[in-house]
């Protein structure tokens, strides 16, 4: 029963990893940018929520009403002000600039919020659970997290394949030059993509802050989880990121079941195995 429980809890945590991954996948898909600061932006959102909750007394989940638009606006400005200038044939400038951004964010958060770890208190949400089977309890918070991840991925999928913004994302990703002939300003299209990415990051950041302690240096670890989930699931496939997140979560859960010290290792090993045997991930984007 312990093993089954580890799997169930792993699946639920996978939802959070899928949230980390969805934004990364989106940005890579639209503009071939690997955002090294992705994890730090998640932590920035956590701190933003923490500051808002402390200033207003709002429930952490209610703070999303402010954190999501703020992060989205920040994403739009970041893309237009800085990241658009780094995009070109050379893949190095965006890596260097987002790496620099990562360092700046970590140190900025350290300076402003100190190195003390924080946590958001979501009250009864965190403590409530219900039994699924004897010996397996489902926490309301992990379930909510997982359901949110599914809803986010479904929403992104809809946006990508059913709306004119999504059409603009796909066209710009296919052929930037010809997309401009359709009247699309690729710099604006990229900015909207980054805004959307950081809206998802905001939700991930708030859930992360409710689930566990966080400090200014937790970003790179979240980046790795997101990155691994993207690669396991298959680059450019949104539902694949959910599967990737779940596999990573389950691997970590099972690893921890063997020995708590194996939790992270088991995730990394699974990632490497997928990379070795299915380098394009489990669900690569249907080429077309």
């Amino acid at each position: 029963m312990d093993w089954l429980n580890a799997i169930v809890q792993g699946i639920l945590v996978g939802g959070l990893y899928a949230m980390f991954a969805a934004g990364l996948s989106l940005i890579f898909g639209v503009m071939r940018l690997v955002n090294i600061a992705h994890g730090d932006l998640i932590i920035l959102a956590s701190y933003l929520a923490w500051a808002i909750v402390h200033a207003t007394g709002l429930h952490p989940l209610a703070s999303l009403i402010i954190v999501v638009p703020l992060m989205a606006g920040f994403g739009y400005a970041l893309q237009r002000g800085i990241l658009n200038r780094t995009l070109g044939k050379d893949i190095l400038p965006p890596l260097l600039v987002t790496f620099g951004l990562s360092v700046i964010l970590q140190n900025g958060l350290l300076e402003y919020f100190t190195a003390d770890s924080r946590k958001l208190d979501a009250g009864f949400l965190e403590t409530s659970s219900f039994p699924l089977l004897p010996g397996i309890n489902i926490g309301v918070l992990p379930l909510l997290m997982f359901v949110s991840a599914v809803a986010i991925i479904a929403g992104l999928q809809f946006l990508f394949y059913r709306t004119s913004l999504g059409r603009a994302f796909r066209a710009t990703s296919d052929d930037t030059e010809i997309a401009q002939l359709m009247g699309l300003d690729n710099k604006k299209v990229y900015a909207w993509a980054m805004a959307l990415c950081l809206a998802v990051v905001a939700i991930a950041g708030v859930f992360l802050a409710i689930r566990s302690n966080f400090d200014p240096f937790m970003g790179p670890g979240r980046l790795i989880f997101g990155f691994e989930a993207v690669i396991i699931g298959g680059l450019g496939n949104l539902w694949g990121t959910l599967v990737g997140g779940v596999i990573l979560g389950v691997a970590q859960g099972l690893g921890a079941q063997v020995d708590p010290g194996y939790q992270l290792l088991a995730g990394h090993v699974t990632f490497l195995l997928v990379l070795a045997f299915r380098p394009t991930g489990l669900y690569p984007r249907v080429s077309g």
Partner: protein
Amino acid sequence: MPLSDEWLKIENLQSYYGDFQALHGVSLTLKKGDVISLIGSNGAGKSTLLKSICGLVSQKTGSITWKGEDILKFPASEIVKRGIALVPEGRRLFPSLSVEENLVLGGQVARPGPWSLSSVYGLFPILSEKKTAPSTSLSGGQQQMVAIGRALMSNPDLILLDELSLGLAPIVIKDIYELLPRITASGMSAILVEQDVTRALGAASHFICMQEGRVSLEGTPMGFTRDQISAAYFGT
């Protein structure tokens, strides 16, 4: 200045790709309703001229005036809104968009005019049967129809057609060329790039021959002998 029917006026256009100069002072004038053929051997600069007009080549000097407005420095996304559309060499459909999505995207600039999904399907009935198919699953000729339709959807006043016949079977080329008069009938101007000189001269009232980034000959097809034209074409 009275708005003349001189729609496009290019003077001394010099275009570059990095350090490489591809156009060395090209000038041309196009009036409302004109259909001009642009001929020249490989690498003469035909595609570069079309890409310079629609804003895809940004490194350029000289002047490009469209309906009295200087558009030399405009980005491509602004030029299409003013009524110039390109059917690019090699078609370049969006592979992750369906046929209909390609067309709808072409109409995104929403200029008023006769062209809409239904009129494009009227021109190319086969496309309405394939509208949900991925654009890359179509035959070459059908893909060319999508590329033309996508450009028409923006209701341009000037359509730039770059090597429509590239890689297509002769019978398909013939079909497409037979439809051209229906496209220009509404008064739309066109610049047509074509390798096949006979076809190019047959479809236009006026031609321009380019060689190594310069205009080597221009006039009406009637005004010159085949020898004069091939001399300008090959540079003999």
